[in-house]
């Protein structure tokens, strides 16, 4: 199978280049990550992040034939050849397919991704009704792979100011939590022309999400909450 992979080692290379590989795959090499591991056994200078190899850790997010996705959950059978692999767009490249995610996690931390509840902790759990728990479905499953945020032009233009779809989905996850007491502060934090309202609902995030989540819908719900408290 033929691959064209983005290579860049800032210690050695003046600028990035595409390297071609022609690799014979074994029948057990079903996912793109298997193929990349196969390539790495031939050329160990190729750098990429990976860990769980089953779409849970979010380490091996990359741009596959122009579309962001996880190598470990992308079957090789459906890929057009040569398979063009590039690092996630919009973030600084550290080496080959590895990007610097600092900006992404900075935005994630800025929405305070944890439960804020000032009541004394109860003897047992803080209980939720099944309906309250159901509100978190589609919001809590995010694995922070950054496929969505790095597919978003608003994040490309203003990565330091726009929270991005992953961060905003998590912001909604805590706004929607019946146990959280900081919704007013959370909405204040996002009431900003850059942090939330750079989203123009083009839905690249929905297209890219390997977990099938819908950040655009969550962003719409945040806007709804703002309208409700203002109007």
């Amino acid at each position, binding site marked *: 199978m033929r691959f064209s992979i983005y290579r860049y080692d800032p210690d050695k290379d003046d600028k990035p280049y595409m390297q071609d590989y022609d690799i014979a795959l074994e029948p057990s090499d079903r996912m793109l990550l298997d193929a990349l591991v196969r390539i790495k056994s031939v050329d160990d200078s190729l750098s990429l992040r990976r860990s769980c190899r089953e779409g849970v850790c979010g380490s091996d997010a990359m741009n596959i034939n122009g579309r962001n996705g996880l190598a470990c959950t992308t079957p090789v059978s459906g890929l057009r050849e040569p398979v063009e692999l590039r690092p996630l767009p919009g973030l600084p490249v550290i080496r080959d397919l590895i990007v610097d995610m600092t900006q992404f996690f900075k935005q994630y931390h800025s929405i305070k991704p944890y439960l804020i509840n000032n009541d004394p902790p109860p003897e047992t759990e803080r209980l939720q009704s099944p309906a309250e728990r159901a509100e978190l479905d589609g919001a809590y499953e995010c694995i922070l792979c950054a496929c969505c945020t790095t597919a978003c032009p608003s994040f490309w233009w203003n990565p330091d100011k726009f929270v991005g779809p992953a961060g905003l989905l998590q912001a909604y996850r805590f706004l929607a939590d019946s146990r959280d007491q900081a919704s007013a502060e959370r909405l204040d*934090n996002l*009431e900003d022309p850059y942090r939330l*309202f750079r989203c123009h609902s083009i839905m690249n995030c929905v297209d890219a999400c390997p977990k099938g989540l819908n950040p655009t819908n969550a962003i719409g719900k945040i806007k709804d909450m703002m309208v409700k408290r203002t109007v």
Partner: protein
Amino acid sequence: MVKLAVTGAHYGLRDWLVQRITAALMAVYLVLLATILIASPPHDYAAWRMLFSGQWFRIASFLFFVSLFWHAWIGMRNILMDYIHSTGTRLLMQILVILALLFYAVWSVDILWR
């Protein structure tokens, strides 16, 4: 000076809402206008003058233009915020857009009530 990302302007919702409301107003006006033009198409200049001589029609048209310019302001500012990253240049461009839209608004009054 260290370049810090400054956010927290505490506006955004109003403009977002205004953009949607003005879009709805424009849609209503355009449907109305299309209905009138299909029902009794004006064939000459005098008929067009007749159509725009009604005070209510002028007011509705003026509302349409105000919606259009307000909508355009929000959209233009969004574009400038996305693509022009130098604060000084962005402010200058925003002022130019506001001046142009204000000029168009006055001009539309002049046309409608001439």
